[in-house]
């Protein structure tokens, strides 16, 4: 990859590598209570410490800035300021901040801030939070429930009543997060001369964040500059405008730039967790295994997330059918506030739990009907002939051959062979082997119009991205995009795309690192999220490059006095087809465009730069029956996992893991394979290791990497990957999403495998992570 040249040498430029002249360093004081009234904050002693330049308390922040603007407003609206003002609502919520000459001095100063807390009862369980007698995070709302609704598509009750059987089961999922290795951070600088705020940050969604910052700071967007350097992983977690507002207020008070870099405990305690939750699943079926209806009651525990609640719910609704033909679907959603870390985007957002619940239910149904779990799936998966297929809630599976994907996985895995080995192990009691299958769909691109299901009115909508391609005056080529890469190799892929359009080698195309709002084209929708690269970003790059290509050809045609249709771009020049000696190099065409502008065709604008924003046409408003394409094109995958359970310890070892997936046209197979490997390991981590555990008082018990366990190289196998390639008819190059990949079916595949291994004990797995202790107990207490 192009970017690897600097990264392997440690020459990347990450947020903590940047510095500004006279820069100060911030630290934040955080609530030790899950829920407490803040009676008073006294920071005078902190300000008196030598080296301290500014202190910010909650009440001050509320007077100097406005609330952060939510994507989904509550009713009535409740203000959410960058610091807790009169009430702390989770352990780790920032209540004050200090800017000092260095981080250590700033942390010393925190110890001098006195906060009078009056602890309040906390609610940490989302079902308890729904109850009428629950402590309330916002008494003015009168409830902790942000959203509760039931969406019904088809005659679910009738089908359930007439079905041969209905499988009912309850599943839960824990809190976990993708925890990028680089934590969140930013630098804020205020220039009183121009009244401009400048930000450098590893924020993944600069478009949305600029709007948040302008709103909270009360300055027009024209006076905000935001730039992103290299980003050390994102996975959805890297966004918290409140922290940037805190830095900005400190910077303005101190009259100096302020940097804040989150430490790992802050990251694990307070940045962003995937929602934990509870799902009650009802699956109606015919005796032959045909699934007839699906009912889901889903409670998403948002923690103190006032900015983006309901996001997990909506995305689950878009993925609820999980690749199956299910004619009738009901989804009852609860989005609930509790005294825990805010929930937010995390690789897959809600889809891992949705897939877990459906694929666990399918595994249990196969057992109930004594059907092979692969066969049960093959009977229900949407087939290639049925494409494009629209699910009852409105998601459109655009392309692919889901049964063929599963068959390929079974073959690669040697399914029959391992079933035979498993049977032998069970007969002679020598081994507890388990085979888990999970299939999944993986959407790309978010259509923000789907929020209308919740708000009842149109806010932001659609899915789009902007890009720029420019031939510089010396003929070299540069491109830029509003989506800052956080490890997806965009510099490499964008260079490939531009090079193809302009007839160059990818080495000849320079792609700007990161993002800079003053030079990068961008939209409110711009950012690194939702698998959107294939759906919108590629179209933006292709569109911009095509405009530049057409202009190059027009200029060359004029210069050569020939029809543009007789020219092509090749090897860095406009070349006459069939007469390769008649050519004009890009440098020569650029000279005309920028310097010798009298040589341009009549009416042609000087310069050689084009910007293009691509809007994916699949994004449409919701319809009268509340159906919507909340996400746009669908990849699919089948996972086969082989585990062995140690009878004595309950330890689960993954012996073999095969992924067969189809993300359409692969623009860069090496990147695609890396995405599949990495995302699958995220799924394995959620299945076996990772959990943010809270006690009943709302204290986080797993706040370091010693107790919040991530998969290491010795925990996971060599994930084997194979692929099918059914291009999407709805994206410019036929590519589909691949970033979330194995994070979606991974937890289900591993859980199905462990449950299969524990079949002799009659064990049922209803929750994650499947720790050795839980397995040990299942072997002794099941069923």
């Amino acid at each position, binding site marked *: *990859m192009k*970017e*690897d*040249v*600097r*990264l*392997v*040498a*440690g*020459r*990347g*430029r*990450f947020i*903590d*590598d940047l510095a500004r002249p006279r820069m100060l360093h911030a630290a934040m004081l955080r609530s030790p209570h899950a829920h407490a009234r803040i009676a008073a904050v006294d920071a005078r002693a902190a300000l008196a410490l030598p080296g301290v330049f500014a202190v910010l308390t909650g009440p001050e922040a509320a007077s100097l800035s406005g609330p952060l603007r939510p994507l989904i407003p509550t009713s009535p609206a409740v203000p959410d300021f960058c610091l807790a003002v009169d009430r702390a609502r989770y352990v780790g919520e920032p209540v004050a901040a200090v800017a000092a000459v260095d981080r*250590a001095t700033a942390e010393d100063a925190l110890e001098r801030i006195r906060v009078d807390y009056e602890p309040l009862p906390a609610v940490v369980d989302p079902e308890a939070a729904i109850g009428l007698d629950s402590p309330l995070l916002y008494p003015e709302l009168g409830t902790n429930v942000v959203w509760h609704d039931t969406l019904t598509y088809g005659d679910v009750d009738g089908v359930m009543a007439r079905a041969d059987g209905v499988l009912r089961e309850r599943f839960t999922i824990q809190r976990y997060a*993708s*925890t*990028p*290795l*680089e*934590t969140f951070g930013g630098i804020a600088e205020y220039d009183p001369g121009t009244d401009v705020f400048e930000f450098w940050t590893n924020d993944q969604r600069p478009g949305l964040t600029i709007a948040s910052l302008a709103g909270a700071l009360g300055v027009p967007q024209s006076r905000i500059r935001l730039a992103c350097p*290299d*980003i*050390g*992983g994102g*996975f959805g977690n890297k966004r918290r405008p409140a922290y940037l507002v805190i830095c900005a207020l400190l910077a303005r008070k101190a009259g100096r730039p302020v940097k804040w870099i989150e*430490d*790992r*405990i802050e990251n694990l305690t307070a940045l962003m967790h995937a929602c934990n939750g509870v799902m009650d699943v009802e699956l109606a079926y015919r005796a032959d295994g045909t699934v007839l209806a699906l009912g889901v009651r889903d409670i998403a525990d948002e923690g103190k997330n006032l900015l983006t609640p309901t996001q997990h719910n909506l995305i689950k609704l878009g993925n609820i059918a999980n690749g199956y033909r299910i004619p009738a679907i009901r989804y009852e959603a609860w989005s609930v506030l509790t005294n825990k870390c805010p929930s937010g985007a995390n690789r897959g957002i809600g889809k891992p739990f949705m897939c877990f619940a459906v694929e666990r239910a399918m595994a249990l149904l196969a057992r109930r009907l004594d059907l092979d779990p692969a066969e049960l799936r093959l009977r229900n998966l949407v087939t290639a002939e049925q494409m494009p297929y629209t699910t009852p809630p409105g998601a459109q599976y655009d392309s692919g051959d889901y049964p063929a994907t599963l068959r390929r996985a079974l073959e690669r895995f040697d399914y029959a062979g391992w079933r035979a080995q498993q049977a032998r192990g069970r007969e002679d009691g020598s081994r507890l082997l388990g085979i888990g299958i999970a299939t999944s769909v993986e959407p790309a691109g978010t259509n923000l119009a789907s929020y209308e299901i919740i708000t009842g009115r149109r806010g932001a909508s659609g899915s789009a991205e902007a890009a720029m391609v420019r031939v510089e005056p010396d003929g070299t080529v540069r491109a830029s995009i509003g989506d800052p890469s*956080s*490890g*997806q*190799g965009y510099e490499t892929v964008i260079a490939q795309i531009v090079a193809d359009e302009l007839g160059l080698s990818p080495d000849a195309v320079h792609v700007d690192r990161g993002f800079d709002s003053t030079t990068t084209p961008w939209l409110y929708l711009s950012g690194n999220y939702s698998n959107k690269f294939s759906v919108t970003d590629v179209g933006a790059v292709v569109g911009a490059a095509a405009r530049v290509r057409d202009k190059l050809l027009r200029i060359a045609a004029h210069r050569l006095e020939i029809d543009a249709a007789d020219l092509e771009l090749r090897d860095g020049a406009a070349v006459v087809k069939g007469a390769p000696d008649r050519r004009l190099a890009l440098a020569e065409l650029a000279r005309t465009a920028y310097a010798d502008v009298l040589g341009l065709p009549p009416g042609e604008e000087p310069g050689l730069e084009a910007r293009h924003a691509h809007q994916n046409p699949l994004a449409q408003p919701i319809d009268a029956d509340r159906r919507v394409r909340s996400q746009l094109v669908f990849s699919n995958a089948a996972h086969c996992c082989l585990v062995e359970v140690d009878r004595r310890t309950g330890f689960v070892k993954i012996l073999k893991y095969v992924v067969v997936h189809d993300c359409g046209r692969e623009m860069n197979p*090496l*990147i695609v*394979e*890396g995405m599949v*490997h*990495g*995302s*699958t*390991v*995220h799924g394995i981590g959620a299945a076996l290791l990772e959990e943010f555990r809270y006690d009943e008082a709302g204290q986080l018990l797993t706040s*370091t*990497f*010693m107790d919040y366990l*991530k998969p*290491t*190289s*010795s*925990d*996971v196998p*060599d*994930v084997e990957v194979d692929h099918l390639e059914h291009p999407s008819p709805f994206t410019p190059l036929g590519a589909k999403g691949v970033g979330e990949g194995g994070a979606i079916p991974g937890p289900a595949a591993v859980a199905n495998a462990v449950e299969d291994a524990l079949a002799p004990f009659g064990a049922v797995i209803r929750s994650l992570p499947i720790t050795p202790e839980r397995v040990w107990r299942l072997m002794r207490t099941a069923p």
Partner: protein
Amino acid sequence: MTPTDRPAVRLTVNGQAVERVVEARRSLADFLREDLGLTGTHVGCEHGVCGACTVLVDGRSARSCLYFAAQLEGACVTTIEGLTPTDGPSPLQQAFRACHALQCGFCTPGMIAAATELLAANAMPSRDEIREALAGNLCMCTGYVGIVSAVEMAAARLSPTVAPAPAARAPETAP
């Protein structure tokens, strides 16, 4: 000594003698990054688990977030900057690139330091031995497959006496 005392320390960093007065509480990671400007060493957890800040101290891998700079009197410290030849990437770095052993690149300097130590001790490690040796370095992006392949490839290239191991996949660029 109190945390804010300022002892002097003399050590060698990437082959160059360095003498500095530092706060006693200054970690080696902060010393390298902020006092010496060697920002290739990354800080991922500051509690000694993630391995992002791994450097070599007298040839052995060490977590620079757990050392105080003042402890390193007389030591030889090698960072990613010192592991990068001036005339282009090392065979290990080339192999990381060829095997797509990185995505965001934040763990890479620490991985390369840990892999350097491994290859110095074991010229032809198996995949399991590589996985064991790198188990103290977290990578959140790659799922480790490419990293293990890269170390395997580098070992094969660096061991002239042994026939090259089959590459896990075609290299992206010729070495």
